[in-house]
């Protein structure tokens, strides 16, 4: 179904293109690299879409967002200026978030934008601006040496694309043996059984139950709810409204709290420790601190870093 030879050829072309695009002394070969890389990506996606006619494929948004993501990613690793690289990374994040929406993961799409594009990337930008010498009037194009040139680009590219070819080869080998559609034994909206509050609110909104009645049990399979009155004499079954669906946020929340509560707690502890660690690591030594620890840390070139990094770290923690 997939022409592996096209994939491999695309890998080679992509490798050569990326090699030309990586930062170096002269930029003459960069357009050729861009063309090669874009062609390689197009060839790869073309190879994929040859089976499109069979149905169950992807729509055009995928191709647009994929081009956007890959292009931004390539530009991110090839742009010599760190600030631009960070901005391109935001673009990648946005494209990926769009793909998440395509995959019906709306909550994660927005979480990604908030956490990555919002919190993490802002922190990166702060650090970049603190540590990087900004171009001034005398040196409008002041690039540090380590930003202007790539390190061992040939070896890294070869290894990277060999890895890519191997990964893709394995991947298609694996997925070609899978059934076209995974069997899902789970009924749709199964989470409704646990979301009695949501069901009750919907039923009240639709005036399907009386004010004094409460929901005792929800059957997701038959889409009915067992409603009991406080007097205890009447128990009746109510059919749920058709527009009552489980949203993505509902599903993730139920799964998170019902299936992975311990992991959730551990994640919280990790975040707190990371915050503490960041504060301890980036803390500037006080002047009245003992001399030996002062000498361990060394001299601080800037005075305001500590505060800002500390704020950034705690901002992340709060955002996540």
């Amino acid at each position, binding site marked *: 179904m997939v022409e592996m030879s096209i994939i491999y050829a695309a890998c080679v072309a992509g490798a050569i293109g990326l090699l030309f695009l990586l930062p170096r002394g002269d930029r003459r070969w960069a357009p050729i690299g861009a063309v090669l890389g874009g062609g390689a990506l197009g060839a790869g996606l073309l190879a994929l879409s040859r089976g499109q006619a069979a149905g169950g494929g992807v729509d055009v948004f995928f191709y647009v967002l994929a081009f956007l993501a890959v292009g931004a990613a390539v530009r991110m690793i090839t742009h010599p200026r760190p600030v631009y690289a960070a901005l391109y990374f935001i673009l990648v994040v946005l494209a990926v978030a769009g793909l998440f929406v395509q995959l019906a993961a709306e909550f994660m799409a927005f979480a990604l934008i908030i956490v990555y594009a919002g919190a993490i990337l802002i922190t990166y930008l702060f650090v970049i601006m603190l540590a990087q010498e900004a171009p001034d009037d005398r040196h409008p194009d002041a690039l540090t040496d380590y930003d202007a040139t*790539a390190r061992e680009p040939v070896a*890294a590219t070869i290894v990277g694309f060999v890895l890519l070819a191997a990964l893709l080869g394995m991947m298609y080998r694996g*997925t070609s043996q899978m059934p076209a559609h995974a069997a899902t034994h789970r009924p749709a909206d199964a989470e409704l059984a646990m979301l009695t509050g949501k069901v009750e609110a919907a039923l009240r909104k639709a005036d399907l139950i009386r004010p004094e009645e409460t929901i005792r049990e929800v059957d997701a399979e038959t889409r009915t709810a067992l409603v009991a009155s406080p007097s205890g004499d009447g128990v009746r079954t109510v059919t749920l409204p058709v527009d009552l669906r489980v949203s993505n946020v509902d599903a993730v929340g139920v799964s998170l709290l019902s299936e992975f509560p311990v992991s959730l707690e551990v994640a919280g502890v990790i*975040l707190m420790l990371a915050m503490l660690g960041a504060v301890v690591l980036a803390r500037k030594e006080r002047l009245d601190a003992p001399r030996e620890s002062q000498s361990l840390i060394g001299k601080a070139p800037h005075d305001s870093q500590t505060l800002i990094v500390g704020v950034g770290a705690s901002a992340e923690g709060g955002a996540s």
Partner: protein
Amino acid sequence: MTDALSVLALNHYLLLSAVLFVIGFIGFLTRRNLIIMFLCTELMFQAAAIAMIAFGAHHGNVQGQVFLIFILTIAAAEAALALALVVMLYRRRPTLDAEKWSELKG
């Protein structure tokens, strides 16, 4: 929820994921700026996130997304610590060149 993702569509997402991962990895290997190296690791996280979500969609459940929450957690923690380390290194020696920090050589 929409219909579960077909294998053909899954292949698309996985290819994209692999490409992004390798690009991030190549960036990590070739760029010498410490901050950009960490940015590249974030890119690799994105690639992993795409694979997670795509697999979750393929199997028709939300565990892939739940897993991504934990990935985001780790990514946030890693970013905080890594940037703190970068700041600390930069205080010792005012450069962001990863080549300058090679005391661990044999």
